[in-house]
C-alpha cells in the first residue's frame, strides 16, 4: 500500500537548477511547479507566440434573441491591417455547424436528447448576448478590435426568454425550431410509483423550492487560443487552455470533421479550469478555419467582459424537493422536480452534469427506500451552462442537505441526530442505491462524529447565547455528503514512464493540471514506488506525441486515474529493469532484488543501478488501468454570526472532515478543499450571474458587477482527513477536487438559515448577501411586531 506522505515532511524537493539558485531551500510545501510560477516563467495560453501571427477579434451580439437581418463587413475589411472578416456563412460553408454534447443516453420514454445545430459563428439568429456573429482577422490585436467596430449588423429583435419558467411555459418564444417547447431533454431517474406510495404513508413531508444560482466559474486566466495550420501534413496546431488534450481533440474533430490525428494540442500551464475549460469552444474552430485559409498562425485572447458573455456558466438549477419521513424521522422517500437552465445552446458537459450526475447520488448518504427525480433541461436566451466544479453534485447535495436540516427543524430534532438515524450503515457497503450507483465504502458515522467533535457541536447553544448578548444572530450548519467522481470520457488511463541515461525518470500523462499540482503529486507516487528522491522524477503533461489514451482532468479523477497508474507504471519499470539486470548480473530474474534505484543479486554484492541499465538500453514502459468512480464523502460544519443592523455574515468557524481515501500529499488536498469551499462560499454569499428579466441583457458583465470572493471571506478552514482506502485504484485514493464545493453550499446555507430561524425565517435563496439578509431580518421583525 502506498505510504501516506503528509505534506511537507519526507518527499519534498529543491527547486531545479536554473539561473536562480535557492541556497537555503527549506522544505515546506514547495511544489515542483512552483518555481516557474513564482518567477513569472510559466507559459499560459496567451503567452504563446509564433512568427507572423495574425490576431482575431470577435464581434458579439448585443441582443439576447434576434434574427440577423444583414451583416455588412465592407467597412471593416477596408480598415488598415485587416486581412479577412469571417461570418456565420463561412462557418456554415465549412460545415462547422455541429457541437459536441456528451449525453448519449435516453430520457423519459426512451426519447433521445435533441441536439440542435450550433454553427461556430451564429448564422441567421443570435440566442444570447455575447453570441459571436463575426470574426475579424488583422495583423494586430488593436487593428482587429478597431475594425470589429465597423462590422455592421442589423438585427430584428425577437422576444427573449430569460427564466426557465418562461422557457417551459406554453406559448413561449422558441429558441430552436427543432426543439419544441425549449425542452431538449426530459430525463428521469428512480421509481415514481414507489415514491408516490412512500409519500402516502408519510407522517411528515418537508418541501423546499431551491435555487442553485447561475455562477460564472471565472478562472483567472482569460480564455485564449492560437491555431497554426501546417499545409505539409494538413495538421492544425492548437495552443489553448485545456483540461486534457484528448477531450479537446475529440470535440474539435467532431465540430470540424478534421481527423483527430491532424489536431495537435499544445498546453503547458493552465490558469484554472473548474469545468469551464474542458470544451472546444466555437471560437477555436473559427481560428482553425482562419489559419488554414490565411496560411498564418491566428491568435485570439479573450477579454474578461467577453468571458462573462461567452465562457460557459455553471449550476443554474431550480429544484422543487420533497422529503417524506415517518414518525421516528426515518426517511421514506425523496421526490425532485429539477429544471436546469442550459442557456442558448447545449454545452459539451451541461446536459450530463445536470441529469446523470445529480441522479447518481440522489440518495445522498442516506438509506432512502424510494427515490424519484425528473430532470428537465430548458433553453433560455443566456450563456450556455456547463459543468462547474462538482458538476451537479454540489447541486444535488445542496437540495438533500437543505431538506434534511429543514426537516430536522420542523420536527424539532437535532440536525446531526436526524442524519445519524438515516445514514447508510457501514455494514451495508457496497451499497446499491435506488438510482443505480454502487457506493464502494464510507464510514459516515465516523466522519460525522469527528466533525461534530472538532466543531464542538454540543457547545453551540452556549456560543449562540453569547452572540445574542452582543445583539448578534448565530447559526450552525451541517452537511454530510457523498459524490461519485468522474469515470471519464475515455475507457482507460495510460502513463508512459521512461528512465534516461542520467537516471532521470520521466512520467508522461494526458491529464492536464490547472492548479492541482500533478507535477508534484504524481512525481511523489513514482518516486515513492521506485524508492528514489523526488528530484530524480519529473512529470510531463499533454505530450501528444506519446499517443496516450487517457482522460482529462475533471470530475475529481486525475489522482485516482492517471495518478494511480503512475504507481503501476513504476512497478512495471522495476519489472522491466529486473529482467535486464538479471542478464547483466548473470542471475535468474527471480534472484534480483530492487531497492532505491538499484538492482542487486540476492545474497551477493553485485549491483546495477537504474541509470546504468538505462545507459545500456532505454528503459521505457507503458501502464494502464480502467478506473471508474470513487465515492469521496465528508461532513462539513459551518458556524456563522450575522450582524442584524447590516445583514453582514461572518463565518466564525469552518470544519471539514473528508474521506478522500489514502492521501498522497496533504498540503495539496487541503489546498483543494480550501479552494473549493471558498468557491462554495462565493456562491452562497456573493456570486450570481444576473440577466435583465425583460431584455436578457447581462447585468453582471465584469468583476465590477459580479462579486468574486476576496481575501477574508473565510479566515480559516480546518481540514481533517478521515481516510477509508478505496479498492478501486492502486493508490487507495478517492477524488477530492470537488468535494469542498459539494459540502460547503449546504453547510453554509444551513448555518445562515439556522441563525435566522429564531426570527421565523425558514428559507432564503443564495446568494445570501447583506442586503438580502437585512431585508429578511427587518421583515421578520415587522412580522413579530
Amino acid at each position, binding site marked *: 500500500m502506498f505510504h501516506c506522505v503528509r505534506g511537507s515532511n519526507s518527499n519534498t524537493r529543491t527547486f531545479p537548477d536554473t539561473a536562480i539558485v*535557492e541556497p537555503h531551500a527549506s522544505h515546506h510545501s514547495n511544489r515542483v511547479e512552483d518555481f516557474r510560477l513564482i518567477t*513569472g516563467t510559466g507559459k*499560459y495560453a496567451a503567452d504563446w507566440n509564433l512568427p507572423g501571427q495574425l490576431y482575431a477579434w470577435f464581434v458579439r451580439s448585443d441582443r439576447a434573441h434576434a434574427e440577423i437581418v444583414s451583416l455588412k463587413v465592407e467597412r471593416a475589411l477596408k480598415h488598415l491591417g485587416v486581412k479577412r472578416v469571417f461570418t456565420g456563412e463561412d462557418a456554415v460553408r465549412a460545415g462547422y455547424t455541429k457541437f459536441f454534447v456528451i449525453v448519449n443516453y435516453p430520457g423519459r420514454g426512451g426519447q433521445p436528447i435533441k441536439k440542435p445545430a450550433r454553427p461556430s459563428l451564429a448564422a441567421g439568429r443570435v440566442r444570447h448576448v455575447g453570441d459571436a456573429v463575426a470574426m475579424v482577422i488583422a495583423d494586430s490585436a488593436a487593428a482587429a478590435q478597431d475594425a470589429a467596430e465597423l462590422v455592421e449588423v442589423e438585427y430584428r429583435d425577437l422576444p427573449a426568454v430569460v427564466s426557465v419558467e418562461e422557457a417551459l411555459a406554453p406559448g413561449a418564444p422558441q429558441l430552436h425550431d427543432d426543439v419544441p417547447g425549449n425542452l431538449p431533454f426530459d430525463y428521469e431517474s428512480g421509481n415514481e410509483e414507489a415514491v408516490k406510495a412512500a409519500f402516502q404513508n408519510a407522517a411528515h413531508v418537508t418541501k423546499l423550492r431551491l435555487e442553485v444560482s447561475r455562477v460564472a466559474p471565472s478562472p483567472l486566466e482569460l480564455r485564449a487560443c492560437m491555431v497554426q495550420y501546417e499545409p505539409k501534413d494538413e495538421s492544425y496546431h492548437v495552443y489553448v487552455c485545456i483540461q486534457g488534450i484528448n477531450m479537446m481533440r475529440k470535440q474539435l474533430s467532431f465540430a470540424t470533421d478534421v481527423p483527430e490525428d491532424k489536431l495537435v494540442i499544445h498546453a503547458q500551464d493552465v490558469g*484554472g479550469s473548474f469545468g469551464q475549460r474542458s470544451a472546444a469552444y466555437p471560437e477555436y474552430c473559427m481560428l482553425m478555419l482562419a489559419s488554414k485559409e490565411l496560411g498564418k498562425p491566428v491568435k485570439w485572447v479573450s477579454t474578461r467582459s467577453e468571458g462573462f458573455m461567452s465562457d460557459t456558466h455553471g449550476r443554474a438549477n431550480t429544484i422543487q424537493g420533497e422529503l417524506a419521513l415517518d414518525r421516528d424521522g426515518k426517511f421514506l422517500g425523496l421526490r425532485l422536480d429539477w429544471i436546469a437552465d442550459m442557456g442558448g445552446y447545449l454545452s459539451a458537459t451541461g446536459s450530463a452534469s445536470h441529469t446523470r450526475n445529480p441522479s447518481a447520488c440522489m440518495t445522498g448518504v442516506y438509506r432512502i427506500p424510494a427515490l424519484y427525480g425528473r430532470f428537465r433541461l430548458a433553453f433560455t436566451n443566456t450563456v450556455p451552462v456547463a459543468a462547474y466544479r462538482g458538476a451537479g453534485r454540489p447541486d444535488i447535495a445542496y437540495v438533500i442537505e437543505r431538506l434534511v436540516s429543514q426537516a430536522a427543524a420542523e420536527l424539532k430534532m437535532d440536525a446531526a441526530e436526524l442524519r445519524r438515524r438515516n445514514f447508510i450503515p457501514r455494514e451495508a457497503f457496497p451499497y446499491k442505491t435506488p438510482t443505480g450507483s454502487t457506493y464502494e465504502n464510507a464510514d459516515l458515522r465516523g466522519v460525522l462524529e469527528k466533525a461534530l467533535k472538532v466543531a464542538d457541536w454540543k457547545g453551540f447553544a452556549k456560543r449562540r447565547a453569547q452572540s445574542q448578548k452582543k445583539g448578534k444572530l448565530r447559526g450552525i450548519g451541517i452537511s454530510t455528503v457523498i459524490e461519485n467522481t468522474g469515470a471519464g470520457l475515455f475507457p482507460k488511463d495510460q502513463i508512459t514512464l521512461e528512465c534516461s541515461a542520467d537516471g532521470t525518470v520521466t512520467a508522461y500523462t494526458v491529464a492536464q493540471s490547472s492548479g492541482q*499540482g500533478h507535477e508534484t503529486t504524481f512525481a511523489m507516487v513514482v518516486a515513492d514506488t521506485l524508492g528514489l528522491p523526488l528530484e530524480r522524477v519529473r512529470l510531463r503533461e499533454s505530450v501528444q506525441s506519446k499517443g496516450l489514451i487517457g482522460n482529462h482532468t475533471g470530475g475529481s479523477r486525475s489522482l485516482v486515474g492517471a495518478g494511480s497508474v503512475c504507481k503501476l507504471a513504476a512497478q512495471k519499470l522495476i519489472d522491466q529493469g529486473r529482467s535486464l539486470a538479471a542478464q547483466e548480473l548473470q542471475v535468474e530474474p527471480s534472484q534480483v532484488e530492487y531497492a532505491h534505484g538499484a538492482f542487486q543479486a540476492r545474497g551477493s554484492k553485485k549491483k546495477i543501478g537504474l541509470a546504468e541499465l538505462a545507459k545500456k538500453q532505454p528503459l521505457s514502459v507503458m501502464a494502464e488501468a480502467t478506473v471508474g468512480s470513487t465515492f469521496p464523502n465528508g461532513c462539513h460544519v459551518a458556524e456563522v454570526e450575522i450582524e442584524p443592523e447590516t445583514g453582514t455574515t461572518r463565518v466564525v468557524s469552518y470544519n471539514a472532515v473528508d474521506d478522500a481515501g489514502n492521501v498522497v500529499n496533504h498540503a495539496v488536498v487541503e489546498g483543494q478543499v480550501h479552494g473549493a469551499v471558498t468557491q462554495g462560499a462565493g456562491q452562497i454569499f456573493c456570486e450570481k450571474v444576473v440577466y435583465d428579466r425583460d431584455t436578457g441583457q447581462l447585468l453582471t458583465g465584469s468583476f465590477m458587477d459580479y462579486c468574486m470572493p476576496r481575501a*477574508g471571506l473565510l479566515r480559516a478552514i480546518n481540514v481533517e482527513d478521515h481516510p477509508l482506502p478505496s479498492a478501486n485504484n492502486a493508490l487507495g485514493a478517492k477524488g477530492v477536487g470537488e468535494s469542498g464545493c459539494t459540502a460547503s453550499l449546504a453547510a453554509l446555507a444551513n448555518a445562515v438559515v439556522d441563525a435566522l430561524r429564531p426570527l421565523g425565517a425558514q428559507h432564503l435563496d443564495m446568494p445570501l448577501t447583506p442586503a438580502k439578509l437585512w431585508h429578511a431580518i427587518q421583515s421578520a421583525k415587522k412580522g413579530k411586531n
Partner: protein
Amino acid sequence: MAKVEIKVNGVRHARNVEDRTLLANFLREELGLTGTHVGCDTSQCGCCTVHVNGRAVKSCSMLAIQANGAEVLTIEGLAKNGKLHPVQRAFSECHGLQCGFCTPGMIMATVGLLKDQPNPTEEEIIHGLEGNLCRCTGYINIVKAVKRSAKLLRGGKR
C-alpha cells in the same frame, strides 16, 4: 505613435508604441515579459501588478507613455543575485498558489504592501489584498504567505 523609454528590471528599453498601449501590453508584447498577466479589463483582478518607481501599480490601468522615464519592476526581475525574493519563497512554502495565474500579481502586491506596512495585522493584509483576485487557493494560504513574507523580510526565523 509615441516614443517611450522605460527601465524594466534594470534594463533600459526604448520603443515606438501606439499612444493607447497599456503598460501591461507593453511589457508582455513589446518586451516579451509574459510573467505579468492580464485577467480582466476593469482593473479588479490585480494579475498585472508591477512596481513603477517602487510603487505597486496595476499595469493595465496605466499607459506605457505614462511610465516614460520610469523604473519598472516585474515578477521576472524580483529575484536578485540568484536568490528568490522572500515573498516568492513564502508563497511557495505556504502553498499560496495553485494554478499560478494570479501569483505574479499577488507577489508584487505583497512586496508593495509590506513596504508600506512591514508588520501588518490580518485585517491589514486582507484589506491590502482587496485588489487581487484568486480563484484557486481560497486565499487562506495567501494570507499565511503574506504573514510569512513579513516575518522573512523582518529577518525573522524561517
